[in-house]
């Protein structure tokens, strides 16, 4: 933290920043426009803190979604300095330059300012059956699996449905019918779960002209994911399952039977 502190006083230096926000008022504007605010920010503030400070002190008409503010609920996804991220996960000290540019995620209808209509996104999510499918009689205890079987889909369980990946995806910008990386990640989470029996049905849904084959391995999803999910890797695993017809799940160990 030494480089943030004033060498004479030892105090953390506040930074003078310009906050550029893409504004859109559905009752007045035909198109979004940029608005700038001057603000002093603490290096350890999150971008969300800066936004809220501007909203409280300068212009209370700024509209944004936020809830938990700890990177778990996934409601404050926005494009910050050109890349999708959660406003609550990016610290001011990690922002380069003197300007923070904030705009709504691209590819979904903008309702107001930074708030987008998430319905198309959640429709795609629902389309891949993101729930456990198992027609066996429910056991009296848990459905057991080995640590290896659990590890097989561990990465994709981390998804918080913030839409950072889907709205960073050029094929999705071009075609909103594309199912999108987030939905494929959530399909992957169940396809490779040893307790699940719906893999075939999910693969059928994804094997569509608007399905998984629209992925062009751009890797914007992987770099945008605030949870660090290897999205493109997950998508290519599902692609391989479709090509080979084999869903490679680790074998059940002796201990479980």
């Amino acid at each position, binding site marked *: 933290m030494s480089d943030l502190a004033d060498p004479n006083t030892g105090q953390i230096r506040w930074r003078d920043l310009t906050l550029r926000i893409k504004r*859109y008022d*559905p*009752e007045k*504007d035909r*198109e*979004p426009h940029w608005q700038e605010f001057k603000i002093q920010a603490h290096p350890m503030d999150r971008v969300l803190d800066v936004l809220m400070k501007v909203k409280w002190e300068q212009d209370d008409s700024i509209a944004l979604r936020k809830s938990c503010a700890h990177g778990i609920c996934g409601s404050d996804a926005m*494009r910050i*300095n*050109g*890349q999708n991220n959660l406003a609550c996960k990016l610290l001011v000290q990690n922002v380069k330059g003197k300007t923070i540019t904030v*705009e709504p995620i*691209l*590819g979904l*209808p*903008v*309702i*107001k300012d930074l708030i987008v*209509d998430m319905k198309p996104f959640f429709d795609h999510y629902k389309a891949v059956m993101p729930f456990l499918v198992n027609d066996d009689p429910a056991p009296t205890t848990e459905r057991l699996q080995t640590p290896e079987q659990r590890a097989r889909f561990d990465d994709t369980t981390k998804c918080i449905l913030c839409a950072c990946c889907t709205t*960073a995806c*050029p094929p999705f*910008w*071009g075609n909103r019918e594309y199912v999108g990386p987030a939905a494929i990640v959530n399909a992957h989470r169940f396809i490779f779960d040893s307790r699940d029996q719906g893999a075939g049905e999910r693969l059928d849904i994804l094997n569509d002209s608007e399905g998984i084959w629209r992925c*062009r*391995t*751009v*890797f*914007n999803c*992987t*770099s*945008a994911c605030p949870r660090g999910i*290897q999205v*493109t*890797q997950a998508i*290519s695993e599902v*692609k*391989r399952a479709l*090509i080979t017809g084999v869903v490679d799940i680790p074998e059940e160990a002796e201990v479980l039977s």
Partner: protein
Amino acid sequence: MSSTISEPKAYRAGKLAKLIDGLRYQGGIGQWSWLVHRVTGLGILLFLVIHVVDTFFVVFNPALYDHTVAIYGGVFGGTYYWPLRWAFRLAELGLIATVLFHAVNGVRVILFDFWNEGCKYQKESFRAVLLVFLALMIPAAIAVILPLATAPEHITQIPENVATARP
């Protein structure tokens, strides 16, 4: 009551706005390699269309074919113009670059799909693509540009066969 409140309209970005906003996205190596791959793919398609059309001339009008090929060599209407030859020669170099990049990066994209570890090394593999591309491109560039140094405009006496020969 119903006349007082109208449903506010959501903003839907048009194709141009999406293109501009999309190009402004800071996606890094993955995004730019994908974009260049796309553009070079379209470039190759454009070349193939031109190539098929001018080769087709030989079937129904051989004289037109000779005329077209002479233009590629810098000869228009029986007169040699060196900027024309340079333009086509450099465009050929651009075509080689386009095909080379698309081919080498295409192997990288195939690896994403068929090699389990492919996605882990997308940045490293792009650096390898650039190295292979340069290794092939530098000799190609020398081979294409060197003949320009001995092109007719550098020779005081233009040989008889240059104006009529097919390059």
